[in-house]
């Protein structure tokens, strides 16, 4: 086992990163903030996939690479595997994590607003948060030679689904 840090470190860092980009650097420009958060994830995923695929045979097809993301990669990053993998066999894969760690541990900013407005803000903050893992997945796959688009679906909380569309 390599070096470890407490989980609070990564939780605090990611929360603060999302907060800073949304509320300080790109306040009122949420599309720009989202793109930056995704880009940070992309770099991390790109680097992690190099590290986590050392000493393993090359993947022979897309499905094998996606399975690697679901199992080994997810375990390294989130300490559990993806619970359900679906595909339409035409380049779209849906990875469902029944209890996505970063949402279950996410500390929603204490806010004075309550009710509908507070709830909307919480959902918005959550979706901004998800650009980071989406970027990680896209970065990892693109480094494995699989260009794709990744989005997240949280209509079934605390489950979270990541939808991967491979570009032809």
């Amino acid at each position, binding site marked *: 086992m390599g070096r470890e840090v*407490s989980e609070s470190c990564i939780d605090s860092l990611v929360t*603060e990163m999302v907060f*800073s980009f949304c509320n300080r650097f790109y306040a009122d420009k949420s599309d720009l903030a989202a793109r930056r958060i995704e880009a940070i*994830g992309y770099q991390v995923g790109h680097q992690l996939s190099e590290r986590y695929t050392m000493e393993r045979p090359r993947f022979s097809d897309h499905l094998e690479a996606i399975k690697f993301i679901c199992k080994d990669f997810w375990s390294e990053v989130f300490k559990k595997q993806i619970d359900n993998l679906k595909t339409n066999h035409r380049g779209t894969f849906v990875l469902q994590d029944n209890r996505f760690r970063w949402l279950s541990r996410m500390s929603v900013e204490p806010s004075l607003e309550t009710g509908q407005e507070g709830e909307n803000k919480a959902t918005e903050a959550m979706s901004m948060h998800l650009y980071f893992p989406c970027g990680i997945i896209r970065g990892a796959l693109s480094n494995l030679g699989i260009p794709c688009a990744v989005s997240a679906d949280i209509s079934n909380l605390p489950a979270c689904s990541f939808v991967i569309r491979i570009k032809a």
Partner: protein
Amino acid sequence: MSRASGPRSGDAIFASVERVNAELFTLTYGAIVRQLLTDLEEVEEVNKQLDQMGYNIGIRLIDEFLAKSNVSRCVDFKETADMIAKVGFKMFLGVTASVTNWDADGTCCSIVLEDNPLVDFVELPDTCQGLYYCNILSGVIRGALEMVSMKTEVTWTRDMLRGDDAFELQVKLLKQVPEEYPYKDDD
């Protein structure tokens, strides 16, 4: 000011908390720094923003520190600095720091870090020589101390990314606000 059971050691806390692969943390921090350099362009501004992010983290992390370490608020700056180095760094980053270079009146010291997971794999490019890569740490310390009523100034005096043999943060106590209790003493 410690409770009867006494403070727990940094090692004991680190062993008991949820831990993750340091790589994820290290690479995420690196990607943030690089994104800030791209977006903000000025290295000085990046230093400032990293410090601000650290400050925001510090003011929240102090609660976890106090709760898990079983330390009640330290009154003494000396004791506090010691707790940060020996317990704080260990329980979050898994590394031990030491406290040295106390000045005569006990209001200024150095926290020295020989091992630092933030900089695994990092090599500063020549264009970033003015960057305090780990500036988030100084912000965390400043923020955490402010929440226990100590206003400080935290500056880097040694940096391994700039060729020094260790990381050294100088922590200077500017003002200690007497603790205000939310309730009256019932004497």
